């Protein structure tokens, strides 16, 4: 019954997606505006705590140097793993279909990859265990229903994803208490996570004025307001301060 439900849901999703694609021809996206930027970190980045993986040789073997908990990834003053997303400003009646491809999250070396990621409401989530040891994946949604599942060995689990907007939805593993990941659940596709160079790009925005928020797990949030015209590309940088 539940399987049938899942099949039906996927089927319905595909139909909706097909309709949506048909209604918004690919050309429409090229009119979209883009907001790009860089996220900087001022001050001395706190040291990431070392992780004692001694009890998990399969994970420890994947590291040449002692593994650390990559809570703050800053290189040359640029901050990675910042979730940047359009908080307000999109037309109230706009509907954005979720992509049919799921977001993939991998547990490798007893850490989550990616650690910070965006996912659309209704988008599937594919959870992979590449370690071959037990991980449990506990999603502590406050607005979304929490879930708590386990993967005893190398495997991939498909989850239906989330139903409402939530920033951020933390993931944790209780077998390895250091493992954390954060999902930004958004009703639209205008979000990005900064890379190692601290850069992000929100593409395909309709013209308008937006409040854009940047979130970091240690340094909190920053917001900015950006107005874009059709086809325009604007820069909006964020700066976090390490205390």
């Amino acid at each position, binding site marked *: 019954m*539940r399987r049938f439900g899942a099949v039906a849901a996927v089927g319905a999703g595909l139909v909706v997606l097909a309709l949506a694609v048909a209604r918004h021809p690919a050309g429409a996206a090229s009119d979209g505006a883009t907001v790009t930027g860089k996220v900087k970190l001022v001050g001395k980045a706190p040291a990431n705590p070392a992780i004692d993986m001694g009890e998990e040789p399969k994970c420890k073997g994947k590291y040449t140097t002692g593994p650390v908990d990559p809570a703050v990834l800053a290189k040359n003053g640029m901050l990675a793993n910042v979730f940047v997303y359009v908080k307000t400003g999109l037309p109230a009646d706009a509907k954005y279909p979720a992509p049919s491809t799921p977001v993939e999250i991998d547990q490798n070396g007893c850490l989550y990859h990616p650690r910070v990621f965006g996912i659309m409401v209704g988008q599937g989530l594919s959870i992979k265990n590449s370690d071959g040891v037990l991980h449990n994946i506990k999603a502590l949604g406050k607005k979304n229903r*929490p879930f*708590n599942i386990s993967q*005893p060995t190398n495997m991939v*689990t498909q989850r239906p994803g989330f139903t409402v907007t939530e920033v951020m939805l933390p993931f944790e593993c209780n077998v390895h208490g250091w493992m954390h990941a954060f999902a930004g659940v958004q009703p639209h596709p205008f979000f990005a996570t900064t890379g190692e160079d601290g850069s992000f790009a929100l593409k395909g925005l309709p013209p308008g004025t937006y409040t854009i928020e940047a979130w970091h797990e240690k340094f909190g949030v920053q917001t900015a307001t950006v107005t874009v015209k059709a086809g325009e590309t604007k820069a909006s940088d964020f700066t976090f301060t390490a205390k």
Partner: protein
Amino acid sequence: MTTVAAASHTAHAHHDDRSFIKKYIFSTDHKIIGIQFLFLSLFFLLVGGFLAMQIRWQLGFPGKPMPGGSLLPETMAPGGVILPEYYIQLVTMHGTFMVFFAIMLLLVGVYANFLIPLKIGAHDMAFPRINMASFWSAFAAGGVMLASMYVPEGAARAGWTMYAPLSAREDLSGAALGQQLWSVSIILFGLSSVLGSLNYITTVINNRAPGMTWFRMPLSIWALFITAILGLLAVPVLAGAAIMLLFEQVLGTHFFDPAAGGQVLLWQHLFWFFGHPEVYILILPAMGIASDLIANGSRKPIFGYHSMVFAICGIAFLGWIVWGHHMFVSGMNPTLGSSFMVSTLLIAVPSAIKVFNWMGTMWRGNLRFHVPMLHGVGFVAMFTIGGLSGIFMAATPVDMFIHDTYFIVAHIHYVLFGGSLFAIFGAIVYWFPKMFGRMMNEGWGKVHFWLTMLFYNMTFFPMHNLGMAGHMRRLYDPNIYDFLKPLQPLNTFISISAFLLFGSQIIFFVNFWWSMFKGKKAPLNPWEDNGLEWTLPSPAPHGNWETPPTVYRGPYEFSVPGMSEDYLPQTKKLPTDREPAMTPAHGH
């Protein structure tokens, strides 16, 4: 509905003019209710066994895809490989189904209902409609419990003992609805149990046939009567605890939440205050039934009838003051542990009386090895092992080592399977003719008994060794531990034995169904027994007796010197018998 209407027309043709629904569905006849309970509990016995097979697959062949496991949804067993969260659901539901819905219903649902009025000479229970309500609330409870396995996150997963806070907090267990449904089901079950118990107690006290004095009652009735008192007083405590647990899950109360001042051990105290009498609810009726079967099979009066009765009462009384022996290492005050140890060890005394008296009954008997007798003797042999292994856990220092290991798993299965279930199989075969008017097949019954005996011991005896080696309970994959790795061959052996044991039960179920329709027609008294029920036709009619029977003696007068037959029915009036004093009949 047309078939029902048609059936009711045919029913009108007989003198019994109840409609089909009144006769077989919403029946108030204790025998039909007993049979309804029998079907219900045998169904749950199968379900529980089926869950056990999945547990054994994972332990015997950890991480291997289970045959047919790919039929299970991804959230339970992707690709047929059982997931840890499904494994703990299996463990939880196996225990819950077996304890509450299989063994307990088989004893106090089926045989209390079926036997009490028949054996004491009453025309029905004291409250037939309450009796019906008891069945249907048990049915609802079972339905809810079964349904809980099909909700999105699966069934409850905190073990059948449902220790808070794991059971109370969805973020820690990973299941919300399944856990809540467990609580709901147990509350309904508690209602059913109380309704049943008050019926049994009232009936035994007030509705005995003339001459059926207290000490002429069969031991099965004594055991069921004492069990009903235990159930009446213990199960409401469980219901109260389950209500608190449900409120914890749904309303966010803080009974078991230490962060808000609640007490974690409160659940354990409440649960085991119920749970230990519950253990005796599960074994006392089996002891009573086994006494009947052994006396009949030995063709001898039961050895020490009065001490058997007092032993039942003694076990029941001690059952109230031993609950702490489940909590020796729980953080309870160790001085309490000492007193609970003493009371627990004392239970060995009435248990020993019973075992030796059964042997005394067989001594110099003329043993007839019909299938019920085989099961009766099997019960004594296996219950002895279960009772003796209990002494290890009663001794607190030893318990500290073997608590929560497979030793306790072995112990509980020797008592509940080797004990209760053997007696139940015997009882089913023994009273089958009175239920369905036909005999179960004797040959296949013996095959079933011997195969069960063999595979049962192969399955559960090695578990003692697992426990002694330190194998903890409820481990999804023991090979995580280096010191448990050498035990894998033993685990695999146990699993194969368990599959064979489960397979042997198919013989029983086929025999049961086949005999119900095609079995040999049963005579009035196929086992040549003295009980009142054997004076009735097979199957026993609605209302039991046209005129109530009069009882002249106890139920175990076998091989009385000077009699031509080796049995002497309770209703047979000898010239020396006096008519009993009784409360006269009151006009309609």
